[in-house]
């Protein structure tokens, strides 16, 4: 039964013929789940990648070893990629800051000026 491999593991397998056609069906690697990693308590969960899994529980089981076997981690989230809603890249212009909206920024308020003016007026 030997496959004449240098790998004893391989020699124990019943390999198919050399030209054999093997095709993986679309969907056989299941669905894609995005993985979010929390490296310490109190920190945000950050996106680190994704796993293919048949359901959320196995996605979590897989994510644990693929994304937390080395890096420090205290918790993980998984969510189906299909359930992520994001803006289109073309809508980037919506995020352009309007320079006139100074009322949203600390720099838009000149407190010291007012204090100095008040003190001078005394």
């Amino acid at each position: 039964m030997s496959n004449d491999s240098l790998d004893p593991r391989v020699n124990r397998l019943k390999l198919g013929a050399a030209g054999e056609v093997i095709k993986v069906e679309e969907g056989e690697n299941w669905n894609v789940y995005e993985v979010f990693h929390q490296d310490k308590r109190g920190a945000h969960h950050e996106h680190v990648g994704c796993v293919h899994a048949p359901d959320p529980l196995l996605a979590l089981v897989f994510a644990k070893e693929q994304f937390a076997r080395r890096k420090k981690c205290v918790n993980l989230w998984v969510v189906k990629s299909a359930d992520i809603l994001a803006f289109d890249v073309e809508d980037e212009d919506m995020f352009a800051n309007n320079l006139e909206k100074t009322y949203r920024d600390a720099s838009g308020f000149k407190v010291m000026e007012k204090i100095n003016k008040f003190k001078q007026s005394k």
Partner: protein
Amino acid sequence: MSNNAALKDLIIKMADDELILGHRNSEWTGLGPVMEEDIAFSSMAQDKIGHAWALYRILHEDLGGEHPDRFAFIRSEKAFQSSHLVELPNGEYDFSLMRHFLFDQAETVRYESLQNSSFAPFQLLSKKVKGELKYHTLHADAWIMQLSNAGEESYARMQTALNNTIALAAGIFEASPEHEATLIADKVYPGEKELYHRWQERIYPVLVKSSLNLPDMSTITPVYGGRQGFHTEYLQPLLKEMGEVFNLDTEASW
């Protein structure tokens, strides 16, 4: 601690099981059914080998045993005390998964019991491996339940795998006629019979949720022998392969 011979006996059988099964499971590394599972299963194989290493170290450091590498890679087949369950070749993934489930549940009840052991190194080690084992059983339970509930072929495979492994798995709990009473009296651990019951209580609910039929445990004959040095035909070649490089020169550093 009073009885070193009894302690050694318990440590060796635990460690040998972990080493041999870790070794077997590592044969799947790179060849698993899907990449994510390949990674998870490989981590757990590493954990098992790691547990064996830790146990051989206790043997070496606390009980005057040999260096772990020499003890694991040079010892003769007859001196191994592994159970037959862990020695068998991997077969297909159903067999490997079922063995992993039954073994890791057994490992879990064993280490849990060691948290209160009178032998201090056992207490330390059982705390160290607690989180790992929690993950192993989470993984194993999830797979057993999902595959058993995933259609006829898959269900049939899992039931067959269970039927083929249950008596072998019961063989994990083979007590030493010579040392068992001492270990229990010295409160090293609660004994194989007690662990065997706790193990059944653990696996039963998972099998129920999987709709798998657990054979009547009173009718099965546990496969014993491994603890006494009587092994399957598969252990000798495994050991020869495992030690192939190490034994080129046992005095050299690798």
